[in-house]
């Protein structure tokens, strides 16, 4: 059974030969470049000092190359956009070093400027004449968006300002998706997850738009969250217009790539935090659900794609509504958040949705546990979530920086040891 068939069966809630494995197909199922380096070294894929490419420079995720995919038995690959989070292509690689000394390769436009306190600044489109859009603190591992738009009390808001990034897809970008999907479909037997963008409503990581040179409108995180209460009509209008554009784009993308992809990453908006949902179920129903449902319905009516939602944190109180909105796949299944108990999740929702994550907790076990505890947790999670399909193995969110090579090896050893379904 090849990887694509394996994923298809599992998404239909049937047991395949093995539990499918994802690593790196989306910006929320990857691995920090320093951990990719450690893992590649531990598996002896590279001589010491061989740099790894940074494929997603905001979270500093490393490239999962074909040799690592084969070594681990990864079943899924990502169909990425033509530009990264900072608005430039992942091309023309150059050498760079993380603060901890890890050798990496970064795109040529990964242009940084040091600050007096030792932190470094990043620029939209790599253009150092524009205001910096993100900062990595000294000794840090990730970038965070910088506030660039201050919202005065009486600012005359124009919804167009928050729609700059939601435009009809260009012919050039359509061609990119068409060629890339064809390449992945014909040259690999992996299932493909598409990351088109533009379909997530109010994703707080995207609101500051670190790829835009001069963003306008509501762009600061706190301003945005408060506006969902105090300027609800404005936010609704943004979503309404965004939804119209996204529907047209999805139709054109489908024309270009057809059903070569198995899954489409529809939403990365975080609705949960550690202790509960970020927003009320009522706000979810009023503001987000109608638009998500419109897009997911279109996908289901016109394609064979499955709709993927990523939301960190505790979302168990929102999940019934999210399922009604048409999401087929849930990620990252943050089992360390309140109420997100693996057995309960599988029991309540396991027949309706696929859990894509939840394999091991990177907040505690993977980051601070022993290799034995990592191995044991992976075994446990595979037994719980793996029953009757509906499970793709991934950690609960990206594998972070600062994890020991021993824990990384224990993680994938356990996946290898327990992913095969016993024949009933």
């Amino acid at each position, binding site marked *: 059974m090849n990887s694509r068939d394996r994923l298809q069966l599992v998404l239909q809630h049937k047991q395949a030969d093995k539990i499918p494995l994802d690593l790196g197909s989306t910006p929320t199922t990857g691995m920090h470049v320093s951990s990719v380096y450690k893992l590649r070294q531990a598996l002896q894929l590279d001589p010491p000092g061989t740099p790894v490419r940074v494929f997603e420079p905001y979270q500093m995720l490393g490239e999962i190359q074909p040799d690592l995919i084969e070594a681990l038995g990864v079943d899924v690959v990502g169909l990425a956009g033509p530009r990264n989070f900072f608005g430039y292509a992942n091309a023309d690689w150059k050498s760079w070093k993380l603060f901890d000394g890890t050798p990496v390769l970064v795109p040529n436009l990964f242009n940084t400027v040091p600050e007096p306190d030792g*932190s470094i600044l990043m620029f939209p489109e790599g253009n150092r004449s524009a205001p910096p859009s993100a900062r990595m603190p000294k000794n840090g*591992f990730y970038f965070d968006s910088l506030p660039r738009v201050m919202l005065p009390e009486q600012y005359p808001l124009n919804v167009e300002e928050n729609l700059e990034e939601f435009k009809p897809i260009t012919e050039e970008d359509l061609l990119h998706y068409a060629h890339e999907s064809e390449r992945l479909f014909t040259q690999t037997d992996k299932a493909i997850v598409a990351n088109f963008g533009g379909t997530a409503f109010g994703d707080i990581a995207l609101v500051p738009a670190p790829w835009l040179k001069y963003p306008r409108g509501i762009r600061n995180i706190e301003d945005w969250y*408060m506006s969902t*209460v*105090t300027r609800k009509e404005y936010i609704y209008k943004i979503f309404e217009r965004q939804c119209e554009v996204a529907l047209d784009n999805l139709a054109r993308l489908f024309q270009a790539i057809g059903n070569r992809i198995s899954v489409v990453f529809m939403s990365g908006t975080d609705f949960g935090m*550690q202790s509960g949902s*970020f927003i009320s179920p009522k706000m979810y129903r009023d503001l987000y659900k109608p638009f998500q449902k419109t897009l997911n319905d279109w996908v289901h009516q016109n394609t064979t794609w499955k709709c993927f939602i990523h939301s960190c944190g505790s979302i168990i109180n929102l999940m019934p509504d999210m399922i009604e909105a048409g999401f087929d796949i849930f990620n990252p299944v943050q089992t360390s958040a309140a109420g997100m108990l693996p057995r309960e999740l599988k029991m309540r929702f396991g027949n309706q949705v696929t859990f894509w994550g939840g394999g091991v907790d990177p907040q505690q076990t993977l980051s601070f546990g022993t290799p034995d505890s990592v191995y044991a947790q992976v075994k446990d999670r595979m037994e719980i979530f793996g029953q009757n399909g509906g499970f793709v193995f991934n950690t609960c969110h990206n594998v972070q920086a600062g994890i020991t090579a021993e824990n990384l090896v224990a993680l994938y050893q356990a996946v290898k040891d327990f992913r095969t379904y016993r024949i009933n």
Partner: protein
Amino acid sequence: MREDRKGKANHMDDTLHGIYQAILNGSSSEVIAWVEKALKAGLSPKMILDQGMASAMAEAGRLFEMNEFYVPELLVTAHAMQTGLGLLKPHLVEARVKPMGRIAIGTVTGDLHDIGKNLVGMMLEGAGFEILDLGVNVPPEKFLEVVDSVDAIALSALLTTTMPAMRSVIDALNDSEKRDHVKVFVGGAPVTEAFAKSIGADGYAPDASQAVNMIKACMP
């Protein structure tokens, strides 16, 4: 935005109730108007703080714990309260109203995330504490610099890679023999009660509302 909660505060003077309700409504302009009215009417700054603002923020915290308020509503409420507090502060100083305690708050070194820290800071201010906000990416030395002027230090972290920096702050306090001068409180997504204990912190809370109650209970 929200129904009148007068029933819960019917013992209040109308002006104080106006402040209370305006905060829960999240209306900064109404809060300003009511605080001005209260000051003009000669109400004591302490009474305005305690019965108008602190009681509104306590109610906001209660509503948060009852799942009636969520983070966006809590942020709106806290910002409205802060606007009023900005107006009241000079009067509190003039009347020599002593804060419940002075707390330095910051996100630890290597971490730039501040929503949780800001919310806790505002909620503590609303409860009557004076807050010294040291910002984000705060190294242990910076906490040491202020340790003699505060009663407590509150540390925030979002990342698994920066959470260990909380221990560095406590180690630095121990090394400088100033650990006994202050209480140390910790919070943030990956932080747990067990971690807080393991690094020798005095308190931990899982969210902003519970942080206020925990800190109130811990402070003399």
